[in-house]
């Protein structure tokens, strides 16, 4: 036939391959939340499986598409070609190509189940940290029951430690995902799911809700911040303190109390005695050490005075549909509140 089909087929066959290889190289480096750039043993196991299945799939892809393209070229209709032999089948061949993929798939399955038991079994012994990740609409709260700390948007952990995460939601289903560190586990109301991960090297890793949870599902991110154990200990003791009460920021503190912030937010030393007694009615993030956090507003914004001012000015413009109302603050009130909140290191 005159159609340049086979040439196109080959070009087409090479296109995804070239794309695949170049972009995987691209994916494996850089600071992206890439699963191919693992920073801990769980993500490492999961990435290893990817490279394994990529190898298997590429082999099958090349063989099958190769046969397809070869058949298209070899058996294309040409002038004077006789009627082909009318072959109806061959049982031996059928058995061969039933058994061959079965063996392939069996090998894949063995690796799957072996790795699954590894990453699903929470290791005992060694350094351990217990954290409860609470999924809200639409931000993450992190409770450290042993250390008696509550924080939000940033999950701070020590390196080389088994972080044992309990997952809790009383609203809808969320999913806890830090691509560089661990795959997803859903946060299901009424189910006590838990998972673990461990971080090899200090750094900041992007995490995000991965189960559609409503209007602002897209803006439900968090950071995992891995610190060396000694710095983590310092961080913990800092977080355990009540909020600083610096008279320099008294105006901001007064606004915090008078503008209704305390209806939803708790600050230890202001409207809370300690982290243990936070009542359920406080539906917003605990702000005791707000100034020490990297992210605010469910991970939408970096924690800078400008961003906080933008948020306080009109939270609904930044993140439509979230629970925080526009309080109608004046510019000077916003400045005072920003100064106060950012001082809460």
């Amino acid at each position: 036939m005159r159609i340049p089909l086979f040439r196109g087929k080959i070009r087409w066959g090479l296109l995804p391959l070239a794309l695949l290889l170049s972009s995987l190289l691209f994916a494996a480096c850089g600071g992206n939340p890439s699963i191919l750039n693992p920073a801990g043993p769980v993500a490492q196991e999961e990435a290893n499986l990817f490279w394994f299945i990529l190898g298997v799939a590429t082999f099958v892809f090349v063989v099958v598409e190769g046969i397809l393209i070869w058949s298209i070229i070899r058996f294309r209709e040409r002038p004077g070609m006789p009627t082909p032999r009318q072959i109806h089948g061959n049982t031996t061949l059928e058995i061969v190509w039933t058994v061959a993929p079965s063996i392939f798939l069996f090998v894949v399955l063995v690796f799957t189940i072996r790795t699954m038991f590894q990453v699903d079994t929470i290791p005992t012994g060694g350094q351990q940290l217990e954290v409860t990740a609470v999924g809200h609409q639409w931000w993450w709260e992190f409770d450290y029951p042993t250390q008696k700390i509550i924080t939000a948007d940033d999950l701070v952990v020590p390196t080389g430690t088994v972080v044992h995460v309990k997952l809790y939601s009383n609203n809808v289903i969320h999913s806890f995902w830090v691509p560089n560190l661990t795959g997803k586990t859903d946060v299901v109301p009424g189910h006590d799911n838990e998972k673990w991960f461990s971080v090899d090297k200090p750094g900041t890793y992007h995490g995000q809700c991965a189960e559609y949870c409503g209007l602002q599902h897209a803006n439900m991110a968090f950071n995992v911040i891995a610190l060396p154990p000694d710095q983590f200990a310092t961080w913990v003791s800092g977080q355990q303190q009540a909020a600083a009460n610096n008279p320099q920021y008294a105006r901001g503190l007064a606004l915090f109390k008078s503008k209704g912030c305390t209806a939803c937010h708790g600050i230890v030393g202001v409207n809370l005695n300690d982290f243990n007694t936070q009542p359920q009615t406080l539906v917003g993030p605990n702000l005791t050490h707000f100034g020490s956090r990297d992210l605010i507003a469910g991970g939408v914004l970096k924690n800078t005075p400008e961003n906080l001012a933008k948020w306080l000015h009109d939270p609904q413009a930044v993140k439509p549909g979230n629970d925080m109302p526009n309080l109608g603050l004046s510019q000077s009130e916003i400045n005072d509140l920003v100064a106060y909140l950012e001082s809460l290191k």
Partner: protein
Amino acid sequence: MATSTIVERPALVRQKRFSETYIGQWLTTTDHKKIGIMYMVTAFFFFVVGGLEALLIRTQLALPDGKVLDPQTYNEIFTMHGTTMIFLFVMPMFTGLGNYVVPLMIGARDMAFPRLNAFGYWIVLFGGLFLQSSFLFHAAPDGGWFAYAPLTECGVQGVNCIPATPSINMDFWALGVLLLGISSIAGALNFVVTIFKLRAPGMTINRMPLFVWMTLVTSFLLLFALPSLTAASGLLLLDRHLGTHFYQAAFNGDPLLWQHLFWSFGHPEVYILILPAFGIVSEVLPVFSRKPIFGYTFVAWSGVAIGFLSFTVWAHHMFAVGLPVVAQAFFATSTTLIAIPTAVKIFNWLATLYGGKLSFKTPMLFALGFVAMFLIGGLNGVALAIVPFDYQVTDSYFVIAHLHYVLFGGAVFAIFAAIFYWFPKMTGRLLNERLGQIQFWLMLIGVNVTFFPMHILGLLGMPRRIYTYAPDLGWNELNLLETVGAFIIAAAILVFLFNFVTSLRQGQPAGSDPWDAFTLEWDTASPPEPYNFKTIPVVRSRRPFYDKKNPETADWKVAVH
């Protein structure tokens, strides 16, 4: 002689009944061919609607911090895109094709229950319009096409959550899928009875064309899978309106009940969307290779095996919800198993090409494109069965890549193969070849440019169902590329629409058998008379029309089946 006057009575002009007018013929028809065409035209209309929704999605995501759609609209659009494409495009399209082709293929004069058949069509039309009308009320469903509870119902009785749907949005969805379910059950029953009871003399089960086989398996899947969806949506409506708590953990209900019910419908559903495509490809490849299908029995029974296994794999959609490890191992195994009959099909299609005389008419191009694309959808599907890897890529763009290679590279390519293949039978005219080739290449390029980068975005950590993303996550270039690809696909569809409209009036006359085909639907006029066949044919092999045209080398003389 007395004269008597004969009163001249005016000649009776009988009023044309409504059912005899052109419009009336369509509106009141019970002819399977007319109903089939109405199904297909309706499905294609919804394909265009769903496609426009897809273009909106891709436009919003073309650049980071997109401002084309607000979050509520985006969530409605992606929900309706999935719902429309699955329930209002692919399913009715296959029902329509089956309606048109199956009775002709088995030598029947109509479906077994013609009026039930018409009922099924009208329910699809009104169910579809009902669902889409939600946009007019600013209440389009926004809970995703799998409508996970409790997001789709909270707000009832003080459960502490912001529902996806404070108003009636998800009621449109639940009632819409209930309606469409009624239609599918009616259609499926009709196919089962037609195929079992109305085959021409000599057409044993083992001589049925493979498209008929796959329609039969699909019909059984519908009959056994849909009740689960019906139950799930019914309970959802009860929770939403009558204060029950089936899915609410706070009242000892369970959100995972929804997921189990939904996916025990949802996974057979995936095969409902692809088995007829397997059937189409198994018809088209042999005709354009000038050979019988290789390994008929294995192609047919692997379809049955897929049908059975499809009921055992549902929880692979739920690997991340925290099921016990042993249960996950079971579902990983069943999911791996289902890849075996699928592989067998692909090998048989390749063997059908082997030693053939391949003619690359448009139906053949789409069928070959199907094999090439579906293979990718199969391979990344196996990757998703690898549970620990699935933890990473489930609910990411990797899954979007997978399902679009299966549903677009698979089902849609097969649908276009079918349209180009059977259009001459339905209209008596051929679609334009050159335009068909242009459309094929645009689609092949478009599909790969749109959906291949989604694999990589998934690996780069991009979750699905996000209306926006930050510019510093490394996702910008690939998203833009995908949007370009989506518009290439749109161009291909425009080429098709142009081709369709012009060929309908000016297409080359096709005759009754333009492809020198093998099966009975080509052994009658194009388009066929309402009664299909003057005399019911007698069947002696799997290729009755081939036998008739080649009496010397008829299948029944040289091969026993």
